[in-house]
Each structure stands twice: as C-alpha cells, then as structure tokens.
C-alpha cells in the first residue's frame, strides 16, 4: 500500500472576521495550499470539504460545489459533516481514496463562519452536535457537556481546576509565535482560575474561542509525488476513526473517550507505529479537559495521569511529548469545520521544519493529529511521518 503525501497546506488566520463568508475563507486557504504544493489545480480529482454549521451561520447548504468554485477546482466535491470532526473525516476519506488508486490528487479542507452568530447563536449552533431530544432540550450546552465530563473525571481520577488551567496556559504560550493563531497572548494560571464561569468547573479560559477560518491541504499519491518531483517529505501513514453513542449519558464511560482510543489504535496499527513512537501531537482541546481525555485516549499518558501532564511540564513545548505546539483549539482558534484539516497542516509544518515552533521537535519523525466531534461520538486520528 502506498503512502499518501502532503504536498501543500494553507490556512487563513483564525479569529474574528464576521463579515467573511466561508467561500472567501476557503478560497484564501486553497490559494496558499496550491502555492505551497506546486500542484496545478487541473490535476485535482476531488474536493472533500468539512463544514458543520453553514445552514445556521450563513444560510448555505450544498457547500461542495461552491467551495470547488471558490478554490478554482473543476472536480466533484462533497461536504463532510461530523460536527467538530468534519474535516478530520474528510481527510480520512481522502487518504483511503488516494491509497486505493481511485484518485491521484485530492484537495481536502474545511471552513467555518461562526462569529457572525454572536455568543448565544454560536452556543446554540454548537449544541446541535449533541442529542437534541435528550440533551439540548434539558439545557445542556457544548461547554456544559465537557463540564459534565470534567466533573466526572475529577470524581473518578482526581485533579482540580488548577490542573486544567496549566493546559490553557501552555497552549497560549505555544501560540505566541503562530501568526495564524487567534490569540497570541500569554495568560497565567490565575487568569484561568479567576475567569467568569461558563459551565462549572469550566470557565471562559478553559474554552476555545468562537472562530472564523479555513484550512486546505493538497494530498497526493506517492506515485504522483514522485512522478512530478514534488517536495513533499511528510506522509500520512496511518488513519483511524472511532464512534460512540450520541448522548453522553448513554456512554459506558463519562470520563474517557473510547471513540478516540479506537481511532488511535487503528491509526497506529495502520502506520505500523506504537504510541511510544509518537514525538508530538495536535489534539482536539476544545476545552481544557478535552486535552486530558485526548492524550489518555491516544495512549500517550496512562488513564488518570493526563490531568497533571501540563502542570508537570510533560506536554509543554520543551517536555517529553509536546501537545498542541500550534496553540491548539484553545489559542489557535476553532473554526469547527476547518479544525481537522488545520491540525494536519500544523503537524506537517512541524515535521518539515516550517513551523515557528519546529525547533522544539527538531528530531521528530512522527506526529499525530486527533480530531473529535461532539462529546467524542466521532473521532479521527492520523499519523504523519517524515518519509525516508
């Protein structure tokens, strides 16, 4: 089976741009990705595009052909919707299509326009990633769902809000040099602890911001990359996806994410690596507790130990396993449909030495991207490696 090469990546700045349509955002990201790749638009066989709330935020469905147009690509285009894992699932399908020889070049990415909804509107839009009848109508919000998991985690494994605060501090620190990040400002533990409560025990600084932005990635088969002499040293060598029951209360565990574990195990086996081989990861930290669940699910830390990893300096930039060197969703921003593809872009840049934080992972050969949907009823994991 041939590897899939990352030929080029492109990101818009993530942040507050309520006036920008998702077609404008994706157009910009795709230009950057094509320029980075050197691949002509004519060679693209398909566009796989992630978006979650387009109907609610800009009264737009049927994003596929619209985004192909925005990217200047004449190819069949399909939208993927898996809540916050939308473009992660798009990447996974792109990898499988390139591997089985169906296509040679795929443009994959995603975008989300969110800030024009305002806080209340975005809270409502995000909530529909949960079970409408049994969760949303009981007043559960998206931060509320993660708060339920955080409280369950504290009760089961210990830990406190201050442990979570160290995760937020770390991710803000990592974003300082990332010019595409929404926040390039340092915060302190006390800022997190003193911030207004959103859904206890989670406060404003435990939560990722509401963001606008897009990400685009040009993926090619290994054959295409070699035939065309592309400089594409990073490959996606493993892909995995896991699923779980929709409502949190129907899950076997309230403080673990089995869907992400399943996705991670599948991706590691697919790539032929073990968790011990992972040098760093970009994980889905939509809330500080989500990073804890993610690094435990990926078997980077034992269950119950993820909570203290940031505080102990094990996941900081200079730690043994840096997590979210981009700043993560927390500081880089979380334009929902773009997030999974943006993680692939960040890991690629880190592995190829083109990232402002590459110095922290100079000898790294293996990075992982973890993208979660809802309260992790969906999860995708991708292993990226520097090709020999």
């Amino acid at each position, binding site marked *: 089976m041939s590897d899939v090469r990352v030929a080029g990546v492109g990101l818009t700045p993530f942040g507050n741009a309520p006036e920008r349509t998702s077609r404008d955002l994706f157009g910009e990201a795709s230009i950057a990705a094509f320029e980075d790749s050197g691949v002509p638009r004519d060679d693209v066989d398909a566009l796989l595009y992630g978006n979650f709330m387009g109907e609610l935020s800009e009264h737009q469905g049927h994003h596929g052909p619209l985004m192909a147009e925005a990217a200047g690509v004449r190819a069949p285009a399909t939208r993927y919707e898996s809540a916050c894992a939308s473009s992660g699932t798009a990447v996974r399908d792109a990898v499988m299509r390139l591997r089985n020889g169906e296509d040679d070049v795929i443009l994959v990415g995603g975008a989300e326009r969110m800030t024009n909804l305002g806080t209340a509107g975005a*809270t409502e839009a995000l909530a529909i990633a949960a079970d409408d009848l049994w969760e949303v109508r009981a007043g559960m919000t998206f*931060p*509320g769902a993660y708060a339920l998991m955080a409280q369950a985690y504290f009760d089961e494994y210990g830990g406190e809000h201050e442990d979570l605060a160290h995760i937020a501090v770390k991710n803000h620190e990592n974003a300082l040099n990332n010019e595409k990040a929404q926040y390039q400002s340092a915060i302190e533990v006390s800022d997190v602890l003193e911030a207004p*409560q959103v859904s206890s025990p*989670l406060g404003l600084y435990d939560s990722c911001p509401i963001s606008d932005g897009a990400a685009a990635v040009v993926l090619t088969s290994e054959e295409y990359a070699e035939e065309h002499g592309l400089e594409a040293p990073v490959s996606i060598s493993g892909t995995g996806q896991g699923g779980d029951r929709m409502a949190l209360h129907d899950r076997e565990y*309230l403080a673990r994410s089995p869907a992400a574990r399943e996705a991670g195990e599948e991706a590691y086996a697919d790539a032929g690596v073990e968790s011990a081989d992972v040098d760093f990861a970009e994980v889905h930290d939509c809330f500080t507790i989500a990073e804890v669940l993610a690094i435990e699910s990926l078997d980077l830390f034992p269950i119950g130990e993820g909570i203290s990893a940031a505080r102990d300096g094990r996941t900081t930039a200079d730690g043994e396993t840096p997590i979210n060197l981009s700043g993560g969703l927390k500081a880089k921003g979380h334009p929902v449909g773009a997030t999974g593809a943006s993680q692939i872009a960040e890991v690629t840049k880190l592995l190829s030495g083109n990232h402002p934080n590459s110095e922290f992972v100079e000898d790294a050969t293996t990075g992982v991207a973890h993208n979660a949907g809802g309260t992790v009823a969906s999860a995708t994991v991708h292993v990226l490696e520097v090709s020999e």
Partner: protein
Amino acid sequence: MSETDSETRDAGFDEWLDAAEEDRAYYLACPNDHGSLPPRRVCPDCGATELEELELPESGEIQTFTVTHVPTPAFEEDAPYATAIANFGPVRITGQVVGIGPADVETGLEVELEVTVSETTGERVLGFSPV
C-alpha cells in the same frame, strides 16, 4: 420556528414526557436486558428489535453535574442552572436539577424525575428533583 413546527410533537419523546408527568416513566428493554430511551426501534447495544416498555426505577443517583452560566437562547432566563446525568439503573438520563440551589447539587445525590418548564420558552424540560 413556525407555528406548525412548535405544534408538532416528536413521536416517542413527547409521549415519554407525558408519561413522566403522570409518574409512569419507562425505559425500553431488549430481550438481552439492555436499557435505552425512546424513540427507538432497535436496541443500540445488540440490534434486537423486540423492545418492551418497562417501568423506570423511581429514583436515580447523580453521577456528574455542571452549573451552566452561558446557556443557549432557549434557556436565557433560566441561567444559572444545574444540569446532571443521573443513573436510574437500566438507563442514565440528562436533566436539569430543580427544587434545590445549583450550588447544592452534588455527585451521589438521589433524585426523581420532575418535568418542569423553561422559564425562557415555556417548553417542557426534563428535570430531576431531590428525593
């Protein structure tokens, strides 16, 4: 939401709320003793299609909870409020904790179902009140 939408009931779910209001709450049981909540035609655990309505235990125990300060617009007037997941044995359920201050909610608290209404919309809300 149009008038028609708001008048349309959700089959299975609204009947369940009706039953809960009359203290006849139930869960769906498959032949392999898996519990689940309606509307549902298939057991999500084993795929069995013979589902039977069995009486829900009278009380449940709060397993985790949160106090929400930033709600969706449908609960704007209700915030802050406590949301919890309570274990009723065969099923766990998410509900809003009523009849007690949000600050007094804790893990292990014994609760029973109480269908209440949103102060914001007047819509029915599945709630829990301390036993």
